[in-house]
């Protein structure tokens, strides 16, 4: 009988859930970040309508990431959440403001609507910044004693975590801009298209900065990336990033509708893979491995049944919902 390593399977499942979250909520948080650049009410209505039917499902992946981690890696969940206390609270508050804005802004008058537009933009920005900071804080490692977090509630605040926070804001904004290129038309699309150029260049700078800074955090990261023979496995990642960048530049130059968004997602996927390479096999870097944090096998097997049946089903009906609302969203014909 082949020994199946449940901890690795579950590490991939959680990583997958978080990635789907980043893919799906990334662009709609990005739309919030870009909101201040589109002051016209008609444009804002179109932007909101382009995600109104799907944002709720997008955020459910965040709940799966958190809940799944508590179930499959309870030790990691119970160490990381107090360590990331402040960014987590900030993220939750940001998500509250932007989430209710989807419905509230249709239920009110002009002056109050402006307030909910600010809530949507501010909430999206804060939630994104908090997620990026949390990512940086995890990468730099947290202070663990026994089975508990043993640091303070501001330990996460470093130049590195601020850098990853800013990088994610740029990244989500790029996803949002390319989403608008795909889903809108006319002058709105033109502006989104110009923004995509600027944000792509900024995103490349951010990827570069984080990639340069990460090896300085821990010697393990350096060895993981640059020591022989690891470099055979790690070298394709930056090479692929270069390739995708060329394709993305070309698709923008040709003013394609769909390609920029999906290539921007590919950039995210590669950055995410790079992150995985840096962290593996730790779930709390330098402190707790996925095997140490894992739930007992019967918990992980019990959930594996559900995941293997339900996740394909979920992806199926989610795809159907996107299909129902496919195509360009036009001024005044919104389906909100």
């Amino acid at each position: 009988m082949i020994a199946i390593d449940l901890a690795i399977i579950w590490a991939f499942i959680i990583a997958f859930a978080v990635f789907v979250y980043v893919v799906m909520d990334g662009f709609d948080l990005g739309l919030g970040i870009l909101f201040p650049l589109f002051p016209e009410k008609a444009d804002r209505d179109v932007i909101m309508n382009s995600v109104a039917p799907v944002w709720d499902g997008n955020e459910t992946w965040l709940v799966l990431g958190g809940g799944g981690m508590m179930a499959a890696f309870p030790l990691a969940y119970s160490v990381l959440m107090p360590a990331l206390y402040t960014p987590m609270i900030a993220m939750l508050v940001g998500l509250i403001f932007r989430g209710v804005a989807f419905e509230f802004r249709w239920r009110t008058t002009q002056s109050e609507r402006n307030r909910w537009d600010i809530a949507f933009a501010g909430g999206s920005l804060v939630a994104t910044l908090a997620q990026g900071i949390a990512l940086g804080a995890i990468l730099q490692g947290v202070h663990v004693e026994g089975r508990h977090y043993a640091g303070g509630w501001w330990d996460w605040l470093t130049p590195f975590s601020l850098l990853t926070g800013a990088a994610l804001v740029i990244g989500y904004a790029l996803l949002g801009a390319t989403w608008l290129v795909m889903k809108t038309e006319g002058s709105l699309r033109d502006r989104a298209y110009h923004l995509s150029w600027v944000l792509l260049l900024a995103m490349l700078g951010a990827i570069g900065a984080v990639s340069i800074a990460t090896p300085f955090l821990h010697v393990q990261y350096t060895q993981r990336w640059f020591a022989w023979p690891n470099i055979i496995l790690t070298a394709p990642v930056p090479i692929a990033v270069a390739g995708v960048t060329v394709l993305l530049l070309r698709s923008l130059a040709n003013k394609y509708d769909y390609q920029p968004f999906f290539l921007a997602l590919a950039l995210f996927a590669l950055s995410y893979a790079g992150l995985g390479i840096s962290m593996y096999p730790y779930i709390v870097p330098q402190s707790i491995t996925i095997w140490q944090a894992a739930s007992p096998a019967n918990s992980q097997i019990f959930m594996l049944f559900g995941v293997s049946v339900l996740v394909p089903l979920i992806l199926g009906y989610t795809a159907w919902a996107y299909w129902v609302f496919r195509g360009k969203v036009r001024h005044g014909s919104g389906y909100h």
Partner: protein
Amino acid sequence: MFEGWDAVVLARAQFAFTMSFHIVFPAFSIGLASYLAVLEALWLWTGRKVFINLFNYWLKIFAVAFGMGVVSGIVMSYQFGTNWSAFSDKTGPVIGPLMAYEVLTAFFLEAGFLGVMLFGLERVGHKLHFLATLMVAIGTLFSAFWILSSNSWMQTPAGYAINADGQFVAADWLQVIFNPSFPYRLVHMVLAAYLTTALVVGAVGAYHLLRDQHLAGPRVMFSMAMWMATLVAPIQILAGDQHGLNTLEHQPTKIMAMEGHYESHKDGAPLILFGLPDQAAGKVKYAVEIPKLGSLILKHSPDAPMAGLDTVPRENWPPVPITFWSFRIMVGLGFLIMGLGLLSLWMRWRGKLYEFRPLHLFAMAMGPAGFIAVLAGWITTETGRQPFTVYGLLRTVESASPLAAPAVGSSLIIFIIVYFAVFTTGVIYLLRLMAAPPHPGEQGPSHDAPARAAGITPAAGVVVEGAAR
């Protein structure tokens, strides 16, 4: 700020506060999702316009309430980790999978079909749209199933073992899921959600009937809501009684707190109707009581002996005053709801359901009663199992995160400010929507935007705009 405060007390306050705000929305949306499915089914079956008008009317309300439920729910799912990390580490292997199943079977189902339900009627056709509505309704029930299973496991843990790291692990998943209090709690809560929604629908119907008795929409919704109160309130009281007997078997100290039984009674315990429980003295002062009735209700025999909290070590006492009073509020409201149902039945029989104004005023007054009863019921069951998070096994003080009081206190203040700002605004919007009567040709959420963006004011648009102000 908060130096010298107890971080655990602050964390408990935060949980109580955020949970109390959250529970209101699912309690409403579980019932409303089912009601919407019934309305759409009736429309497809009979073709009567009044049903699709009511469907679209309540759909707009559902959209706002559901959004608030989602965002306040995300806070709950992360709070286990932020404020209760020791609890998460120890119970994650058992209740984590139950919550993961809630996400997989319920949250995705609701969220995945919500967009089509809200905006998709013209895009997918009637049958597929009804399927979407049905999936959302079923999703809310699945959600209730899993979250109540995990809550019930914390109340009446079963099917578990404890491993070398001090974690609870599952020995038998069926026993974990179908733990002793779960079936009772599930029935009691789902019925409570249905009644809560019926009371809101009934109050809105009554409000519009008071202004005009001839409006078709308010007549239909008022009649449907009063049927629900008539039929379900007595069933709920029976279900609550059974739930209480189950609690007596598995969580006797909670019953002692609910009943105010500080002292043991060897030959028949009284039923204390009212009184002031004094936790320090271990007595209920100024008690108004009926002799032997407590034993009669709980043991079905007037002379059955009942143990009191004097048989329990003091460090295991729940806070009796809160449990005692919240229980009485819940039961009192339960009987009032049954009274409303019976009065409506009488008026229906006399043919005055839509004319008898005192009934409408009563129904309006009872609009929030379901929410208050649900909150009181949850306060009863959650304070009654203190001082434990996992009843008898894991103490609340051993469950908290290793955080300093200023961290927990600051986040508590932030949540209080944000929740009051956001959710009171949301409730005002809901009340505005309810203040306008359902209109012939009522449109769903999909038509609000274009009607306003284009500046045209068709009849429905006027009503919606008027309501918005």
